């Protein structure tokens, strides 16, 4: 019985880890370019473009304004379309990814906006191309902020991932609901919560450390 529970916990963790890894990977792969795009198309920047700025901004805002639990349900047909199923952690990672990308993109944009406009101008006055400015000025200067933003994103995803259990996504949340809620095993619920608290502390600690190491200010 105890061994069963340990196994259940192990499985739930792997599932959560799996769905979050996919979501975080895409959040970085798509969110960073999207965040940069949102920034460099702003007024006064080198790729100033009202159309792109407003279209991308609106899409990001729409996704961000849908509560995750609703997004989960709304995306079921889409998940079925690309994966053939809407059950399991991989399926849950689809909606997590959709939520994570705009979330992180906004945080990336915000950390880019923190950069002193003068530093970008100085780079322009050296005759640098927009590409070089993005690579050698924007990314290094925003790196600490982007790491801090990723920490926030991962923690938010962890709490989102717990909801995935509701639609059969598996993971820690699923475990807590199945055992703790439906079977009234309060100890399971309690352990889950404690583990989540420890996890969040750990992620925040590592994130803060990395952000500090990246900052040369």
């Amino acid at each position, binding site marked *: 019985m105890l061994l069963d529970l340990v196994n259940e916990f192990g499985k739930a963790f792997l599932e959560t880890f799996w769905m979050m890894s996919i979501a975080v990977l895409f959040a970085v792969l798509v969110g960073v370019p999207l965040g940069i795009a949102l920034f460099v198309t702003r007024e006064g920047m080198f790729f100033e473009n009202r159309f792109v700025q407003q279209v991308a901004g609106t899409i990001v805002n729409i996704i961000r304004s849908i509560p995750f639990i609703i997004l989960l349900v709304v995306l079921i047909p889409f998940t079925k379309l690309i994966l053939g199923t809407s059950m399991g952690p991989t399926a849950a990672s689809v909606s997590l990814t959709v939520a994570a990308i705009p979330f992180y993109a906004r945080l990336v944009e915000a950390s880019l906006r923190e950069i002193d406009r003068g*530093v970008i101008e*100085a780079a322009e*006055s*050296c*005759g*640098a191309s927009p590409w070089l400015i993005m690579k050698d000025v924007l990314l*290094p*200067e925003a790196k600490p902020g982007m790491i801090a933003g990723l920490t926030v994103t991962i923690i938010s995803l962890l709490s989102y991932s717990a909801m995935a259990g509701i639609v059969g996504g598996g993971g820690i949340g699923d475990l807590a609901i199945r055992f703790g809620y439906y079977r009234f095993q309060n100890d399971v619920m309690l352990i889950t919560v404690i583990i989540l608290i420890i996890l969040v502390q750990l992620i925040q600690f590592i994130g803060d450390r990395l952000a500090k190491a990246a900052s040369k200010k």
Partner: protein
Amino acid sequence: MIRLEGITKQYKNTTAVHDISLTIGKGEIFGIIGYSGAGKSTLVRCLNLLERPTKGKIFVGGEEITALSDRDIRKKRQEIGMIFQHFHLISAKTVFDNVAFSLKAAGIPKEERNARVPELLEMVGLADKAKAYPAQLSGGQKQRVAIARALANNPKVLLCDEATSALDPTTTDAILQLLKEINRTLGITIVLITHEMEVVQKICDRVAVMEAGKIVELGTVYDVFSGPEHPLTKEFVQSVHSFSLPERLLESRKGTIAKITFKGDSAESPIISETLAKFSITINILHGQITYINDKPLGTLIIEAIGSRQEIEAAIRFIAARTKQLEVLADVA
């Protein structure tokens, strides 16, 4: 080297720069002075098109930069270095990489960059700081890094946007000295904007005084200092060159008080002795100063002439004719 033709820069509701035409010679250190909001910053930012003028043409090195495509402007900017009040270094990169950035922007291959950066750091006196991050440097050192970065691609022009305004007086002097050296040894034309007349006095050859988007006075620094015409120019000159006599002196005077300005040759001839020999008056010196601007003396003397009214008037006419600049501050009672 630089020619502006009818440059106007308009923002939504304001005109920052109003129809300015100007020519700056090769190898010159040209100062633009004005209070904040005068449009001097906008004007200097037009020179490398960080700011695009609404109207007018700008020529740098004979080429009309206002007609260039974005791509060609980037290339042209490698000929026009720029430094700023707040340095604007990349905080996440070392001193070495900050300077190398400029070379990278010009497409210089890595081996050449690695050879050139130490030379540049040597020139600005920071050879030992290559691995430091900007946050570990003092203001003066940061500005030196910025200068090295601006000079990396051997520019013909260096634009300085309030480059010394965030520095203390000693550091300011050192940076100005460095700029002058760069101007002399490399022959780089320098356009410098500032709100401090001292900076102009120390290194500029010519100066333009700006107010409300227009140039109100333009001339060699010596002429502007010795004979400022516009009220604003007078104010700036007074800021470094002021003579205020204590009230007490004016009240207890016995004769006529006059301010004499000596320019060039007249500063070096013994006018006071000649006057004393010619007229039977006594002269009491209340205040005096000689400053050298571009190695030319500019003297100011405040004297009190005591004697008969007739003799004083004749003496003052004599001095005025010799110096061309005499101002009677208080006549004999």
